[in-house]
């Protein structure tokens, strides 16, 4: 299989900086909450993360609520508004890898507090990875905020098309369940408009 314009990359897990506000929101704590256990969970999580991403840049034709990416035509008011005025967009996918899912399963069989904390930290890490990748892609460009299938009226049903377009199964190991959930679970896909 070959995907003519998809690029892939990876990031060292130790270099990923978690956003304190995001982490606190996921943990359900205040931003100044500190606990030894959280640090311990983060260290184990980092050892299990394999941060990877794939992206492609492509033309997009936006007319009102319809965004035509060539490989998919999305009818969505929210996405139409987000991409309005853009002639190009990135689509991208990031993942922390399957080892994180295995770690969460193992923790679930033991300590539920470790499981909860690690899950929250992993969600925050996936967001950070996504931020990091969008910053890299946006370097030197003016880009819109990223927008994911499932946000607003951008239907989750586009998830398979987005993943196929990026060859995310082969490149990143991201697959979908029948209910369209991504596995590894700490994965994110998004569209990001490029302003002319």
């Amino acid at each position: 299989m070959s995907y003519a314009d998809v690029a892939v990359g990876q990031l060292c897990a130790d270099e990923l900086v978690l956003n304190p506000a995001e982490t606190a929101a996921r943990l359900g704590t205040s931003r100044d909450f500190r606990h030894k256990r959280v640090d311990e969970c983060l260290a184990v999580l980092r050892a299990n993360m394999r941060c990877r991403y794939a992206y492609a840049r492509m033309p997009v034709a936006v007319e009102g609520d319809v965004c035509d990416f060539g490989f998919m035509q999305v009818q969505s008011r929210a996405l139409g508004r987000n991409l309005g005025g853009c002639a190009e967009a990135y689509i991208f996918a990031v993942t922390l890898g399957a080892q994180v899912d295995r770690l969460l399963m193992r923790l679930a069989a033991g300590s539920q507090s470790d499981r909860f904390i690690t899950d929250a930290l992993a969600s925050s890490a996936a967001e950070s990875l996504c931020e990091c990748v969008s910053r890299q892609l946006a370097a030197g460009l003016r880009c819109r905020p990223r927008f994911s299938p499932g946000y607003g009226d951008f239907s989750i049903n586009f998830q398979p098309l987005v993943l196929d377009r990026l060859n995310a199964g082969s490149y990143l190991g991201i697959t979908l369940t029948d209910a369209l959930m991504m596995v590894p679970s700490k994965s994110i896909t998004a569209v990001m408009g490029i302003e002319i």
Partner: protein
Amino acid sequence: MNDKPLITDLIRTRRVYIDGAMGTMLHRRGLEPGQPSEMWNISHPDAVTDIHLQYLAAGCDIITANTFGANGIRYDDPEPLLRAGMACARKAADKYPGSYVALDIGPSGRLLEPLGDLAFEDAVRGFGVCARTAQECGADLIIIETMNDCYETKAALLAVKENCSLPVFVMNVYDESGKLMTGADAWAMVCMLEGMGADVIGMNCSLGPDKMLPVARQMLSHASVPVVAVPNAGLPHVRDGQTVYDMDEQSFCLYAEQLARAGVSVLGGCCGTDPNYIKLLVEKTRDIPLPDILPKNETVVSSYTHACLIGASPVLIGERINPTGKPAFKKALRDSDMDYVLAEGIRQADAGVQVLDVNVGLPEIDERAVLCECIGRLQAVTDLPLQIDTSSSEALGAAMRIYNGKPLVNSVNGKEEVMSAVFPLVRKYGGAVIALTLDESGIPSSAEQRVAIAEKIIDRAAEYGIRPCDIIVDPLAMAVSSDPNGALVTLRTVQLLHERGIRTSLGVSNISFGLPCRDKINSTFFAEALAGGLDCAIINPFSSPMMDTYYAFRALHALDTACAGYIAYASDAACDSAPSSVGDMTLRDCIEKGLSADAAAKTAELLKSVSPEDIINLHISAALNKVGDDFEHKRAYLPQLLMSADAATASFAEVKKALPPSEDTGRRMILATVHGDIHDIGKNIVRVMLESYGFGVIDLGRDVPPEKVLQAVQRSGCRLVGLSALMTTTVPAMERTIKLLHEFDPDIKVAVGGAVLNREYADMIHADVYCADAMDTVRYAEAYYAGI
């Protein structure tokens, strides 16, 4: 077809070449990115045939039909695509007599359970149609490629083996760290794939030939079959909106030469390569001599991440997952309470064993079903290889089939009936087998006779195509209390077998049966057996004397570099016996601060002077209520609440040990995350809170079909059910479950919760109650049991 040699024979005589990328070539001809390439078999067959012809002209031996994604998992009926793909390839190959056509099997695009939601047997079925069509359409071989998960690779290979008789090459995708996406290294893959009878194994995609070299070397050092490498043209980069690979054919071939010199028998090209690459590849590597492919004779078992070598440092096999003499375990098995088993598995792994024995043999249970469930659940939480321990060949076959890796099988013996039941399974699924030195005439009393039985078993296994290195002989430790010479005979047998190069294993603790302070006898016997060359020992890893012996032996026998293993073990042991740092903290403090181990220790101490009821009411409940109250008033956060709940659960477990089983309160709740939903965090939080309040929880896990929830209700008699859903897409499954339960019995109370739900939504799907969080559920359960 006709008079050309079989591809498996040709490989032994010269280096063989597979074609280059199909996708790359199709994209050049206008296939849109993201569009399935197999569609072109029907819409543009001439283009597909032409690409095959170009590769054949470039000098490859094997062309790969354009069937990568055409399987029964992606398509309801993949057969037309498969047939059309084979027709294109055959048409091209017919112009090149002596060429070979491979039907190509790529990944399903789904992840198998337990990580994903694709059932193993559904995967086997989905790939089975590919194998059947391959044979019908005259393929010369099957190539399974670009697999990045060990379990899916097993499903595909099993499907091929069960549905056709064609030779099969298997290629996985390794990353720079030498692992598959789901964690397996090359050695683990060699282990499983050779065991199942793959003809050629190797790697493709993802890496260029330079980065593939270390993976290929690792594989070559362990493989007894030819190795294949099909690299990308380097790494993809985007230039001017187009992906380009960073290696031209010259540098590609420079590194491919190194692969050939390292001993790779079959070469080809993946993403970014074209006929020019293949042409040069053949020119540059054709004359590099083929390596001798020698059997490595390693005794090795594997999990889905790593291989475990038997015969170097002694291997510890944890014996604790076995109901014999364990009433709590028996109860757990009868109640289908897998958590007990999982906890026992994790604890043994933490204690340092390398393999876990799994025995669930109880007369009153469906051993086949329970063993399979156990294996599946254990493999979700531990990456240790497992030893499947059963006397039922039916249960054994089912468990070996779903095992992710190459299992250790316990056991076969010299009885013809047993050998003829077990060996075909080992031949089919792969495995190393423990062979007991007994036969129709019983257990011989002399070492020489036991060795004779071992040799008979090894010979008989060879008739099934099972290599001698896959037989590990257990010369049987017999109770020294009933036969004073028993230990001596066993030790001598170990020694004789070791001298003959035969691997050995012992169920060590049998030796002390009927004697007091068994550890003293066991550990001394263990030390002697190790000195005699024992390779594996089935032991209790929670026994300090046994672990002392193991670590000391390794240090004394130069198996522990710089004594690092011993030093780490000894310092851990010293820490364990040091007084706890919690000093004068109370049980309430321990629970409020979320210190599980300390809470358990304090509880055990308190039980000496305080009644179990008082501990629950005055200490555990008081602490939990304080933390729960703090949480509800936002003075404590969810992580703290959960840490306290974990500590309370640990404390409660100690109390339970002191309570007679009849005083079980009977307050139970069935919990499940609904069908299609694999997010179980909310359900797990509810569970730990319920358990910490002393409720029994029947946890059905995640992605649970409605029927399974009903079965649990019927089996347990419990009429209180909690359902969780995180995604809008799975709420309909929740509604179906509620309907099914209420049809069965309108009095069943169903509580629902999860991110997408609210009170109105819960009413709409006819739930009995909506619980906003875990504390809400606890309060509801308390009210429910107060009311009945």
